[in-house]
């Protein structure tokens, strides 16, 4: 047992003496969370629009006020004619132009039908679609306000309610995503690198010619990283909670246990990688290409899985990150308990056992 303790202590020396890696380990979660939380966001927030109001009556003005009262839009300028629309877009800061035609109120009240034209800069299609949706829903609200005054006999109104994330905050999606990404990176890449480093520096040769059992060598190398990845998970959760007011509706204990489970899955993957490679370079490349890319692309973190081709959806089932993402969202946003997330949990457990079994089988007690 003392051997094991000394081995873990040696591993901690390696980690804490390598200041640069340590900085990356703890700096990266902060940077990624801030990046994804603030900068890389597809939320609509004070988007500059231009208005071409040909009607110029109180009703059209109320519509514009309604649009700007929300913090989604800010009127950048009023246009004087259709010929100004193109230049407004060309200057770049205007993302949407609303054209309110002549006799807007008159048409609405007397002909029971008024048209409003929305033009968007679709060079960024996602933003354009979102803008149209926001604007449409605001126009619908405005229409209801007006018809409410008139008491039309029959109307069907669709009431939309966004559950679990009512304000559609992108950060609620990114915090679990970044957590998955970082845990994968720290656990899988770091373990595979640290084990292959022993091989590369030749120290594995001495460790093998010693009474240490292979399981002891692996466990001794991995345990500090379990602690490390757990700490990082805590940092990310804390940042999510304090900076972005990300809720944890479910049990915090369950959430932390799931984090440890996913850490273990990633670690076992890292061990597997290290058992099939001999150089740090290769281990890093395999971790980056073989783990990071699928984790980003196929976990449902950036791109929704539902809209992917069937084949990719099937492939995504083999990605641990996909299941962890489901668990995180279910526990944090929907407040679900173990009874609801037992399936992804079981899948992660299964994957961990499988990876560990394969890597123990593959561990070489000799050099070649």
């Amino acid at each position, binding site marked *: 047992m*003392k*051997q094991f303790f*000394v*081995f873990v202590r*040696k591993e901690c*020396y*390696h980690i804490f*003496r*390598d200041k640069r890696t340590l900085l990356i380990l703890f700096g990266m979660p902060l940077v990624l969370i801030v990046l994804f939380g603030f900068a890389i966001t597809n939320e609509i927030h004070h988007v500059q629009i231009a208005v071409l109001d040909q009607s110029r009556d109180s009703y059209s003005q109320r519509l514009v006020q309604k649009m700007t009262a929300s913090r989604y839009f800010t009127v950048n300028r009023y246009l004087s004619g259709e010929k100004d629309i193109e230049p407004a877009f060309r200057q770049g800061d205007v993302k949407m132009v609303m054209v309110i035609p002549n006799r807007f109120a008159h048409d609405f009240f007397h002909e029971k039908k008024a048209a409003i034209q929305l033009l968007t800069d679709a060079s960024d299609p996602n933003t354009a679609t979102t803008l149209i949706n926001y604007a449409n829903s605001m126009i619908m609200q405005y229409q209801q306000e007006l018809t409410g005054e008139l008491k039309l006999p029959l109307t069907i109104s669709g009431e939309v309610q966004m559950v679990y994330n009512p304000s559609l905050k992108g950060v609620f999606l990114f915090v679990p995503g970044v957590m998955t990404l970082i845990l994968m990176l720290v656990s899988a890449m770091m373990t595979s690198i640290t084990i292959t480093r022993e091989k590369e*520096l*030749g*120290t594995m*040769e*001495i*460790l*093998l*010619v*010693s*009474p*240490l059992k292979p399981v002891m060598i692996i466990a001794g190398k991995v345990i500090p990283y379990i602690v490390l990845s757990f700490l990082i998970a805590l940092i990310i959760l804390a940042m999510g909670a304090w900076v972005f007011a990300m809720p944890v509706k479910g049990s915090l204990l369950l959430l932390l246990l799931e984090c440890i489970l996913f850490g273990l899955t990633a670690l076992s993957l890292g061990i597997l990688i290290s058992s099939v490679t001999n150089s740090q370079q290769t281990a890093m490349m395999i971790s980056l290409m073989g783990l990071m890319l699928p984790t980003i692309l196929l976990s449902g973190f950036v791109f929704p899985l539902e809209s992917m081709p069937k084949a990719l959806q099937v492939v995504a089932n083999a990605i641990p990150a996909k299941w962890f993402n489901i668990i995180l969202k279910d526990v944090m946003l929907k407040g679900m308990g173990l009874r609801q997330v037992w399936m992804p949990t079981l899948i992660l457990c299964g994957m961990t056992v499988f990876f560990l079994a394969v890597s123990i089988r593959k561990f070489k*007690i*000799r*050099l*070649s």
Partner: protein
Amino acid sequence: MQPIIVENIHKSFGDVKALHDISFTIGEGELFGLIGPDGAGKSTLFRILATLLLADEGNAKVNGRDVVKEYRTIRREVGYMPGRFSLYQDLTIEENLNFFATIFNTTVEENYELIKEIYEQIAPFAKRPAGKLSGGMKQKLALCCALVHKPKVLFLDEPTTGVDPVSRKEFWDMLQRLKTKGIPILVSTPYMDEAVLCDRVALIQKGAIMQINTPANIVAGFGMPVWAMKAKNIYRLIHDLRAFKGVLSCYAFGEYLHVTLDTELDDVKAYLAPLGHEALEIKPAAPGIEDAFMQLMQEQNELT
């Protein structure tokens, strides 16, 4: 019981034959040297004996235990120092030593007697990371780490490669002292001058052992006179001598050339005279182990 028994070991890596029919035994408290150039297969043999590689054919016993079946026991009992510096560069001398003592279920204090003389030389730098030590100090530390669990057999793969002459001498003094404690030592080196310090040596080239004997017997077995020659333009002298039929071998040896002949010395003198070498000097030389090795190497090359 012989502590190390090697019988008919063969090992190939793909098409390359690394070891060919290697057999030898090492007795109690014997300092046995494996002498050969880089790529002769010395490290491969060490790894087979240290249970890190499996031989294709043949078997070997360390301390009476089979290197394949009883590898676990052997790993507890041997001290192995790989050819490449293989300690933790970011750990200090102290930490490295304590680490290796603990994983072998012992403490530095328990076996301090064995490493005392070596450790005292590096003790002033105990707090320095191993990566920042000089070559000689690194090897001394590595030897300490290999000795700290009081091994029954010691394997040292090129312990003095890349070490300055003074440290090399100190290192061999230590090996001589260790030998007196009864530990059999298998050591490899590419340096001929170290060969004479061993009890017995095996000359190895291209994966095959050419001769096993005591250094004195190997030199004695060299049955012909050696001439030391030198001239102002030594390069031209080598060239001219090698072109002469009566010259068997001609190698640079320090500032002189060592030359063996199958003709009379006067013939060579007569041959060299018209070539106008300035400051030509010819005198008899005592053959060394290097001459023997060169001759054996040449014979082996002619055979294959």
